[in-house]
């Protein structure tokens, strides 16, 4: 396996007035293609800072960060923007959807940024809405969606540009346990099916449980790290058995599954393009 993310001796310090607050202290990290890696640690341990630097959202004080063999710390701001658009998808704790756009438009927006036509972008958006199982909610604005639904849109948006890496910062922190588990299941499934690398910062035990590799940070340093045999995704049926849901919801889920299976059979080309 090859490392697609390499950080070497990465340092970052924030200054509040004259007081230094070290955030990262000599981080050496390699993430390989297809990993479902989780950065764990307490608040202030440097998880988000590390994600931001790897995601070219923030600069480091020293050290190097190579993503796909490109040193992102030496890129201009506009080049970083383009790099993020082409290679990295982001999922944030607070979902961070564009409020004035519908779910579908939020996803289509990033495709348009890539230069795709509006029609093509909307088609791609529909595909990813199907993938995250909320196709019927595409016309809703973010404030008409639940937290879990918004996070699914955020994941769809992150995947719509077909990035090789998804960086997710506390993606389940604002969700209830069950919704969080469903989301982890979704991300795991996408990781295994599409081979997209996931690097997630979280202190949610369920996320840690799902990780193929767990990297523990404390005071800006990697203090512990272990890999596990990839676990099968948490079964949505065990986490959220259909038979426990209200009748209306059970009928809706069954119908959705039935129709989505039929659609996939009818248009295998459309689906294979994005998978």
């Amino acid at each position, binding site marked *: 396996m090859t490392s697609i993310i390499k950080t070497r001796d990465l340092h970052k310090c924030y200054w509040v007035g004259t007081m230094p607050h070290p955030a990262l202290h000599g981080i050496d990290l390699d993430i390989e293609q297809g990993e479902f890696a989780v950065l764990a640690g307490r608040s202030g341990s440097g998880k988000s800072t590390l994600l931001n630097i790897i995601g070219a959202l923030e600069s480091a004080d020293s050290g190097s960060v190579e993503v796909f063999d490109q040193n992102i710390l030496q890129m201009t701001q506009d080049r970083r*923007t*383009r790099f993020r658009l082409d290679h990295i998808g982001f999922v944030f704790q607070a979902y961070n959807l564009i*409020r004035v756009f519908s779910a579908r438009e939020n996803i289509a927006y*990033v495709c*348009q940024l890539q*230069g795709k036509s*509006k029609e093509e972008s909307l088609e791609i958006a529909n595909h990813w809405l199907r993938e995250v199982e909320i196709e019927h909610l595409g016309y809703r604005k973010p404030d008409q969606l639940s937290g879990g639904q918004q996070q699914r849109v955020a994941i769809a948006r992150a995947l719509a540009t077909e990035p090789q890496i998804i960086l997710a910062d506390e993606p389940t922190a604002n969700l209830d346990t069950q919704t969080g588990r469903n989301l982890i299941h979704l991300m795991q499934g996408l990781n295994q099916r599409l081979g997209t690398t996931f690097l997630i910062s979280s202190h949610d035990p369920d996320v840690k449980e799902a990780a193929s590799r767990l990297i523990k940070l404390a005071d800006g340093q990697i203090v512990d790290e272990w890999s596990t045999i990839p676990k099968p995704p948490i079964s949505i049926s065990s986490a959220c058995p259909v038979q426990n849901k209200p009748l209306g919801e059970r009928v809706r889920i069954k119908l959705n599954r039935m129709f989505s299976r039929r659609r996939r059979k009818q248009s295998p080309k459309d689906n294979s393009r994005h998978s």
Partner: protein
Amino acid sequence: MANRTRLGITTYLMFAIRNLMRNRRRTTITLLTMIFGIAVLTLLSALNDGWLSQMKTNFILSYTGHVQIHARGFEASQNLRDRINKPEEVTRLMQSYSEIVGWTQRIRTSGLASVGGGSAGVQIMATDPEQETWVTSIHEHVTWGDWLRPGMSRDLLLGATVAETIGADLGNRVILMAQRPAGDMVSEVFILRGILETGAPQIDRTLALIPLNTAQTWLDMGQSVTDIVVRADHHENTGQVVRLFAQQLSGQSYEIMPWQELDPMVRQWLEFSDAYGLVIILVVVILVLVEILNTMLISLHERNKEIGVIAAIGTTRIQIFSMLLLEAVLLIFIGASLGYLVGSLLVYALSGTGIDLTGYANAFQFFYMNPVIYPDLTSDSALRILGTTLIAALLAGVYPAWRATRLSISQALRIQ
């Protein structure tokens, strides 16, 4: 590196419109402020243009005409030696230009008017009684008695203040004294046929009006005159008429003066009015600009996180800049268009009846103004208002848009 990122104009517009609709109350209040400001600005500009146009017309028609042609140096010397000896060289050109609707010849000189024991310095103006009526409206200001009668060589009209100063009444014999071109002083007796009251002090205090033929004989001028006064079809065409005469009479010893140069005080007053109009535009535009800037900055402050997000997911700085600038431009475009429309409707409503300020009639007469002001929205003013508003829109939009591009993405994302 792949193609540059691009967004269609519809995406920019959708983003701008929806963001404006996001806080409808704030957008509505901002729009109402703009509509009010631009409507008032439009009305004030139209009133300014209206009374300036009246003032120019009244000034031109009361005495000076649009263009005066003199022998070179006469305006400065006011000496009869600087006279036009062959006025036909100029007057033969009058028929050639459609912009000229009338002309007359005059002799102007300083003199003394006396009757009984009273006397006063006067500006003697000799003119053709009929031709003068084609050029100016001075004959309409005869408040007592009659205008100069053709063929009546001893007729005299005096300004109301002059007549009062020397104690002259209609029918009185008034002696005028003046200097001939050769330098000798001569006097002549005239009969006071009318009294002029124009409201313009320099006319009422000094004018003594006599027939041109009489003056030419009395002052030993032959066919010479001092002024050839031209009336154009509109004061906007004054420059064109001046250029036409300048081309035809180049190389000859004439001075061709537009009305603006004939009375420095009026010119200064008009310049002051233009500057005053500009100040009004600037004040209103600055208020509107501050309002828009305030709205945009508050809106930006509220959306810092969202701007951080759109930057994080791949929107370039120039795209963010364009989005926010378009939002401000759109807001100002809608506000300015509606404001201009409301202002134009107000102008239209008032253009029939005008604004009656008869209570200040004396002050208005002093400045050649009518007591009823009719708003007149000129294309120049419309362009000035809309152009200034557009510049204001860009100024008000550029700063918040620029600030948005300076946001730290990671800090913006940390906002709760």
